[in-house]
């Protein structure tokens, strides 16, 4: 439950291009009856774990409503399950060796009527009413606040911050910053396949469907880093099409946004200048934009302020120089099937490029 803390260390350390020797042990399985196992699972289910992508740890008003709704439904569901199984058990017991004691027709009729019709109807009515009320809260889109155009790509996220007139302020990728306590309006678009935008701790899913613009919104109540992930199957690298949402105080957010609007930092050292040259010479600029250097690349993420991001490759690996080097040299090893080709270059060229990219705060 550390919603207010800065980036958890665990987010920063991971990545699919390294294996960690951690032995996962099979949880103990004792008892040979399904009931024991079942109870074990329920206990497991009731435990809250600290996780950056768990819908059971809401960090916004709407997800908190949904989580409460879930706990309510779980309670009712467990009562129903226990009730039905108890009835079944009692019913079976009564026909033991002592002989048959079946229900009278009237008794059976009452059992079916109350259990099979009245109870489900009452539960359904309650569920539909609560569901519609919460649904209305989610559908109530804010009328003010920053606008972000979320563009689903294969397989990463482009984020375009717009002003009230709809003009572009800044473009970034895979890391969305939002002000705490203020709603952010989202315009969800895709020009390729269908994706789905989902940050479990902040907002339920909305799809990005080619040919239409869907709207959603997001409002973090607590500062923190939240992870989101594409939830509609979108091809080879669907699994690692993730992103981070960084919720920070409004003034920090405003500073961040105005920084993002600026062009890239000018090289300050010879190595950085050399790296910038490599960026252009190696053809990186064909796909990637660095505002102030080359603005033709539209296929890959905008790298203007790359060094300020916490993660690389759609939040799959931490943004360190080592990981960045590995990613540039052999992206297919890190995320098989992604659209970035391997680049062969001299070691000193790669070093210079890494130094330059590392300077793009």
């Amino acid at each position, binding site marked *: 439950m550390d919603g207010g803390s800065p980036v958890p260390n665990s987010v920063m350390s991971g990545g699919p291009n390294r294996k960690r020797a951690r032995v996962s042990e099979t949880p103990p399985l004792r008892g040979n009856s*399904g009931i024991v196992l079942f109870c074990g699972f329920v206990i497991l289910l009731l435990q809250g774990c600290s996780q950056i992508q768990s819908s059971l740890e809401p960090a916004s008003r709407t997800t908190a409503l949904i989580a409460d709704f879930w706990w309510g439904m779980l309670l009712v*569901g467990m009562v129903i399950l226990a009730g039905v199984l108890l009835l079944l058990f009692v019913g079976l017991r009564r026909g033991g060796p002592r002989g048959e004691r079946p229900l009278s027709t009237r008794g059976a009729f009452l059992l079916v009527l109350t259990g099979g019709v009245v109870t489900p109807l009452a539960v359904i009515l309650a569920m539909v009413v609560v569901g519609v009320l919460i649904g209305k809260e989610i559908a109530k889109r804010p009328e003010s606040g920053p606008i972000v155009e979320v563009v689903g790509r294969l397989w990463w996220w482009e984020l375009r911050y717009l002003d009230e007139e709809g003009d572009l302020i800044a473009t970034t990728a895979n890391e969305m910053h939002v002000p705490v306590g203020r709603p952010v309006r989202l315009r*969800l678009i895709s020009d390729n396949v269908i994706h789905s935008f989902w940050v479990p701790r902040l907002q*339920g*899913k*909305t799809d990005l469907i080619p*040919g239409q613009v869907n709207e959603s919104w997001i409002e973090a109540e607590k500062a923190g880093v939240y992870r989101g992930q594409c939830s509609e199957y979108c091809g080879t690298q669907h699994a690692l099409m993730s992103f981070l949402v960084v919720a920070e105080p409004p003034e920090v957010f405003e500073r961040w946004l105005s920084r993002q609007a600026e062009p890239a930092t000018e090289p300050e050292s010879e190595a950085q200048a050399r790296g910038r040259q490599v960026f252009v010479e190696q053809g990186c600029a064909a796909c990637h934009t660095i505002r102030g250097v080359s603005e033709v690349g539209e296929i890959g993420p905008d790298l203007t302020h790359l060094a300020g991001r916490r993660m690389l490759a759609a939040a799959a690996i931490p943004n360190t120089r080592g990981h960045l080097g590995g990613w540039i040299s052999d992206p297919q090893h890190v995320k098989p*099937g992604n659209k970035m080709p391997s680049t062969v270059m001299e070691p000193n060229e790669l070093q210079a490029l890494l130094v330059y990219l590392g300077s793009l705060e």
Partner: protein
Amino acid sequence: MSVAEHDRPGEAVDRSSEETERLSATWAAPKGLTRWFMPVNQRVIGRRFVITAFVFFFLAGALAVLMRIQLMQPENDFLSPELYNQFFTVHGTAMMFLFAIPVMEGIAIYVVPMMIGARDMAFPRLNAFGYYVYLIGGTVFFGSLLFQAAPSAGWFNYVPLAGEEYSPGLGVGIWTTMITFIEVSALTAAVELIVTILKLRAPGMSLNRMPLFVWSALVTAFMIVFAMPAVIAASSMLTMDRLIDTHFFTPETGGQPLLWQHLFWFFGHPEVYIILMPALGIISTIIPVFTQRPIFGYTALVLSLVATGFIGFGLWVHHMFTTGLPQLGMSFFMAASAMIAIPQGTQVFCWIASLWGTRIRFDTPLLFVLGFFVIFIVGGITGVMVAAIPFDLQVHDTYFLVAHFHYVLIGGAVFPLIGGIYYWYPKMFGRMMDERLGKASFWLAFIGFNVTFFPMHQLGLQGMPRRVYTYLQELGWGDLNLLATFGAFLLAGGFLLSLFNALWSLRRGAPAGEDPWGSPTIEWATRSPPPCYNHEHIPIISGRWPLWERRGQLSIPVVTGLRDDRRETLVTTVLDATPQAVAVMPGPTIWPFLSALAASAGFLGILYQPSFFLVGFFGAAATFIGWFWPRRPWRDD
């Protein structure tokens, strides 16, 4: 034709009379080299459907185990993403299209005519055609895995991902054409079942005396007739988008990706009930047998089946709550989806009322039914939960959903199905399946199932999306995934044990006799395994539980007067089953097989060259001429 008192079959009759010999000669499946492709008898076709479907079940199950191994630990590299995506696509497609529907149809094809006292299905050749189409379509679809050409866009094939641009190559083409093809087979079986059930019932078996399994087969067949055309239309449109550049689903040129989803789920949700429905019929068949009392609430059970059939078509939009449709419209589908709980609840409580206070034989078939209760109720409760729009926005396309629908499909359909196999096996093969193996298989499968799928609820709530080939260690999903993989091995072991049991019992099982369970319905009034003509005389029915009502009496009234030198069966009226006519059935023939071959050649050919449809079209037309060449069997006397 006349009605005569006849000895109850099997009790005092020497069955090897001249009459039965003549019947055998008339109805026998052909011998010789071509015999594999000639039979049209419903028992042969039904058995082939069931066995083929189980082959696909075990293949698709093997894919599931491989996927569980990949997900056993975070960042595993046992399978490549491409292979994993192919596996889950083929697994889902095969389980839905190649296993669940055909196996239920196969059992219905095998059992229903015997249960209603008919000698065969209404259109035996169409029946055979449906099987070959299914066999070829299924084999090609599964074979695509071997040639690295399997589809990888998911069993739901959402466009534009499944379009030519994002899924080039043969994969999705094989999916769309083979699915169209296999659905044709489902439709033929459905039409067969409807006509057979409505027109070929034994005299006296009015609609309100029909066994509940026959009712479930009837409702299923009607659902297939209304649902399958939607997916055939959708997959034909997708085929055309891919092959001849139409633009049904491409947004740049005015197409609509959501159109696919509407068509697909208009079929796809009823599909779940199509799979579930026969299982409900199996449960209603097994419970009275093992309690030896009539089931409580026959009428309520029938109405529940029919209501489920109707409501099943009104809730497809709950698969699309995240697509940005208006909230108010979706609320209707939320209410409709939850409403299905009422007929299902009614059935569950009718069964509990039937089991209440009775002396029960806890044999394997009933064990699987009791296992169904636990699993299906959990699946039903989570089903109502995911129907709630706000909650669905969080769990849609997560492992919570994977857990939910496996609880419904395995618990709701596969467990009763295996119970049904244990129950009807003695009728099919004349031998009992082993009880000890059966019980061990049940417990292994039951525990394995819950260990596999219960943790997935929590994984989904913790944010694990489905259809991912890997996940980062930091997300904390590793332990539960490892547990699920462990469970998958238990579950697979449980099912394999039943497979072993079935094979072993073919030779070694105890001889069953005619009616080992003391069942009330008339498929148990003939030999086990049944002769090729089902019943030597069509019985006359005077109640819902014909064999129980005849207990202690030696005789059962039967219809006499049908000729035994050609394939005749009795046609009766739809409501009351009063005799109406005598139908003459066709005998063995190669034409359905040739038609299926010609149609397959066309369907497969268009993947390479769209003009190949001409081959299929003219080839099939030519074989249909042979098929329908008039022979006038009613004139040859």
